[in-house]
């Protein structure tokens, strides 16, 4: 029985944790929230220097050639720090998409630059408040040109390239394409969102040049595959964020006195914190299985990814909101650090589509498995 990360992976986790403690304390997150920067360039450059943007990129393309398990431990620490960097867009989504569905020219052209940090990439699926499905994707690809609107696109205001989910006009099928966001015919607008520590943009493509990517033949299932990978990885960010929230709530419950005693001695508070812990452990266990399936490319990947996503979203949403509740009034002030996790929990929880939809997907997969 070896259902755990390896010693090397745990060392990497510690290394990332140390780097983030030193370079990405919560003040850095606050600077991004309050300032004009889209992200913390300093933290991003540090992560690039550690080679982390190339974690799973094969060595032939200049990456470290490591497994998705390494990405899981990195994700957990990024989530714990609520790091204001485009790691999930560029690494979990775009890089994985290019690795799986890029043509050999596209891989040669982009993967080395992604590994070296020369470019930042993102992934654009959503177009509006309507849940995307194979019938309602409006962005169209025709003769090398892309037209339509994507929003909200994570890190879209400053990313260099974008993997865009498109409708191929000729075949009326779903596909993915790569767009250089500095090309002509592209309008970008930063959006006002719940979490300004992670930029989101509306991008309007008007006959913009783009390159179509490979497809398995079923473009929509290719997109789902990317989402499944990201669901497992983001679940680790959510777990890190949830643990940070629980820790913050616990410290406060020990420090704060009311009615002559520590508020952490009241069962109403103790049980709330115990519930946070329980949800986090359930999420972790589901995500470990997700990680194992991702690493083995196992047959349960779709189910495990959905389960990771459902459990981790529940854990982080609950921990972030109850952290504020545990703090009382002070937790609702701008000065308090509780807000960073509260904001981030929704951004991560919604980034890959609604939980109602993931639950449905989970049961559909179970039905298919048992038929």
């Amino acid at each position, binding site marked *: *029985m070896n259902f755990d990360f390896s010693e090397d992976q745990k060392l990497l986790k510690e290394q990332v944790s140390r780097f983030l403690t030193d370079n990405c304390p919560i003040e850095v997150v606050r600077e991004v929230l309050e300032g004009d920067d889209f992200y913390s360039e300093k933290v991003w450059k540090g992560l690039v220097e550690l080679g982390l943007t190339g974690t799973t990129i094969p060595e032939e393309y200049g990456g470290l050639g490591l497994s998705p398990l390494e990405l899981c431990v990195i994700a957990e620490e990024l989530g714990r720090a609520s790091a204001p960097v485009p790691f999930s867009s560029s690494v979990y989504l775009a890089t994985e998409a290019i690795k799986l569905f890029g043509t050999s020219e596209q891989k040669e052209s982009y993967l080395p630059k992604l590994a070296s940090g020369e470019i930042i990439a993102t992934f654009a699926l959503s177009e509006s408040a309507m849940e995307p499905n194979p019938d309602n994707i409006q962005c169209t690809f025709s003769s090398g040109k892309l037209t339509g609107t994507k929003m909200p696109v994570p890190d879209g205001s400053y990313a260099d390239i974008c993997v865009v989910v498109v409708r191929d006009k000729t075949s009326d099928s779903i596909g993915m394409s790569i767009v250089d966001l500095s090309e002509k015919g592209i309008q970008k607008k930063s959006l006002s969102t719940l979490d300004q520590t992670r930029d989101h943009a509306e991008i309007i493509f008007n006959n913009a040049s783009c390159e179509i990517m490979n497809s398995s033949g079923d473009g929509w299932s290719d997109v789902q595959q990317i989402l499944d990978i990201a669901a497992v990885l983001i679940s680790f960010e959510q777990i890190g964020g949830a643990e940070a929230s629980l820790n913050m709530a616990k410290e406060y419950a020990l420090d704060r006195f009311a009615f002559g005693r520590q508020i952490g001695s009241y069962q109403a508070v103790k049980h709330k914190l115990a519930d946070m812990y329980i949800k986090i452990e359930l999420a972790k266990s589901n995500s470990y299985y997700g990680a194992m399936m991702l690493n083995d490319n196992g047959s349960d990947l779709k189910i495990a990814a959905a389960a990771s996503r459902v459990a981790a979203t529940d854990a982080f949403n609950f921990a972030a909101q109850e952290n504020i509740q545990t703090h009382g009034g002070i937790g609702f002030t701008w000065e308090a650090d509780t807000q960073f996790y509260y904001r981030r929990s929704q951004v991560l929880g919604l980034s890959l589509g609604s939980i109602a939809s993931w639950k449905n997907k989970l049961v559909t997969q179970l039905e298919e498995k048992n038929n």
Partner: protein
Amino acid sequence: MDFNDTPEENDFRLEVREWLKNNAPKEKKAGGYDSIDVQESALARARDWQAKKAEAGYAAITWPKEYGGLGGSSIQSVIYSQEESKYNVPTGFFDIGLGMCIPTMMAWATKEQNERYVEPALYGKEIWCQLFSEPSAGSDVAGVRTKAEKDGDDWIINGQKVWTSGAHFCDFGIIVVRTDPTVPKHKGLSFFFLDMKSPGIEIKPIRQISGGSNFNEVFFTDVRVPDSQRLGEVGEGWKVALTTLMNERLAIGVPKSADYSSLTQLAKDVILNNKPAIKNDHVRAKIADWYVQSEGLKYTKMRSLTSLSKGETPGPESSIGKVVSAPKMQDLASFAMDLQGAAGILNDPDMSLMHSIFQNQWMSAAGYRIAGGTDEILRNIVAERVLGLPQDIRVDKNVPFNELADSR
């Protein structure tokens, strides 16, 4: 990351598998201790099986060899249980004795006493029970009122214990009693082991809301116990009780119950809003929620087993099992009954869908949320021992027991 055995674990598994193949009983239904109406024949079969296991060293894998154990590791114990569970062997008669009582004896009794009692218990010749809970002492078990008074070299016990599994077929018991009511709660307790056939002991079954009977009330009227059967010092019985309770956390779980898969099965068969319930988004979301909880517990166990496999103590995550699974049992059953509409109240296995599994589960789950630590006590334990939050303020801490508001 994998679920595979190490080579050593695999060797042990093969060895156990081979032994079980040659020795496990072949009967279709072995009959465990699942109701108080124990058939003598079932008990006899259980004793035979236990003796066979003990002979081979598998009855207590982690115990030292001097006590008849195998001197093995916790992961070996888990592997044995996994393999044994594939057979219809009798279960449940010896768990409390060997899981809680005898470990307490090994920690506190004299060498001579252990030489006398451990082996017969291990071989299933003598069965033990635990006498802790009382009508007025449940979660607050240190509040027991059953008293023992010194009389020469003996102690005289008077009072009542409750929720005692197996008392009616047990030979011996361990008991915590109050020997000094004039000092604060924890300081006036002493701990004994006693012969359950002693004069003055009366055992009555408890009937549960489910209609079943799994436990007893035990009444003590002038029951004489020699001082030599005291474990620990007079007044230090709580310390001894903690040894037992630590082992209880390991022993108490929740049985296999109808889960998301049974619910899915039911949802295919019943109609909701003119279509099969399984097509309803709300039903699907509920199935997903319980799937995630069940899988979360399953893989939490795998994490704990990984620690055992490495020879480490499992982390605190192992403490969340019952506080998740017992309420889930109840909620899921309640939801499944709701899907059956007015007929959800039927509790006749011949008429009710899926032979009343949900109705029965709903009744018994109410008990599992209480047994071996209520939901509330378990949350306190997570908060205090895992998260390091302070204990509740104890108003009874420094007050003599007989001056407490509700003590008589």
